[in-house]
């Protein structure tokens, strides 16, 4: 379907571009929001990205999916908009987790209420660095393959797998620390 609308837009019917906006705005917004952290900035960036995509639509060769090509524009636009240097993920030594009283983080997380889960994950994602948030969003939320993420971010596959593995580890440790902190608060 993308190819059909692409052809129509390239033939001069600009109104058909709304198909791409409707289809990709949600995910594009999620990606931009994960990088920028502010709703207004994410919205403006996605709008700019659509405009950039429209301007360079004739350069899209179709060697990859339109979504991959477009998300790459979104990622680049978002990264160029990040004003301040990214916050460094708080120091979390891998051995630190062994001291925690929460012995099964996954089970502890599953026992939480839906609202608590969302708050916990939001806090954890907020503590991750931009790159980790982006990779986790592309891989788990958008369900892009490693090859697609490699095209979107420009990272090579092996490097990407390693970064994804580390991001998952950091997420685990942050959630672990958050749960520990909550339990300590409850226990006084």
């Amino acid at each position, binding site marked *: 379907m993308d190819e059909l609308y692409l052809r129509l837009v390239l033939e001069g019917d*600009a*109104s058909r*571009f*709304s198909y791409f*906006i*409707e289809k990709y*705005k*949600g995910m594009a*917004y*999620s990606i931009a*929001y994960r990088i920028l952290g502010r*709703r207004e900035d*994410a*919205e403006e960036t*996605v*709008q700019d990205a*659509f*405009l950039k995509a*429209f*301007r360079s639509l004739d350069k899209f060769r179709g060697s990859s999916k339109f979504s991959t090509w477009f998300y790459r524009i979104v990622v680049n636009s978002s990264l160029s908009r990040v004003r301040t240097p990214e916050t460094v993920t708080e120091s979390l030594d*891998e051995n630190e*987790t062994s001291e925690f009283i929460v012995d099964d*983080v*996954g089970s502890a*997380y*599953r026992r939480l209420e*839906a609202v608590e*889960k*969302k708050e916990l*994950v*939001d806090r*954890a*994602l907020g503590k991750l660095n931009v790159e980790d948030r982006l990779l*986790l*969003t592309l891989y*788990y*939320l958008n369900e892009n393959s490693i090859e697609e993420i490699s095209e979107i971010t420009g990272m090579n596959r092996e490097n990407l797998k390693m970064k994804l*593995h*580390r991001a*998952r*580890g950091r*997420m*685990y*440790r942050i*959630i*672990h620390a958050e749960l520990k902190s909550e339990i300590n608060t409850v226990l006084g």
Partner: protein
Amino acid sequence: MKEFDDELMRDMLMRSSVRLDNQEFTAATMKAISRESRRRRIVNSFMMNFLVFIAVDALIWLGISLTGSGVAGLVDGFVSGLNRLVFQAGQIKATVVGSDLVTYVVLIVGALAALLSVLELRIGSWER
């Protein structure tokens, strides 16, 4: 290194996903796209017309030089150039809604081209 399994990670990311609440987003973006599309059409149209105008003008001058047709050829050249400008202005009028910097630039260049055509005619008569 300890980490969550894929299923749990997906659950976490889904829970914290954000939604684009702005109902006007598509309309606002399409407005910007339409403006861009119109700007591109104007530039393309102007470039095409301007090139044709220059080409026609050059051909007529070449014709005058080769055949020595004098004032009659010169007047033909001017009328032909003027026709191109009128055609160009008509197209701009048809494609532009409201004021646009490109429109002004196009019209100024068009006016300069017309002035040059008149000057060409004057010089032609002085030479004669």
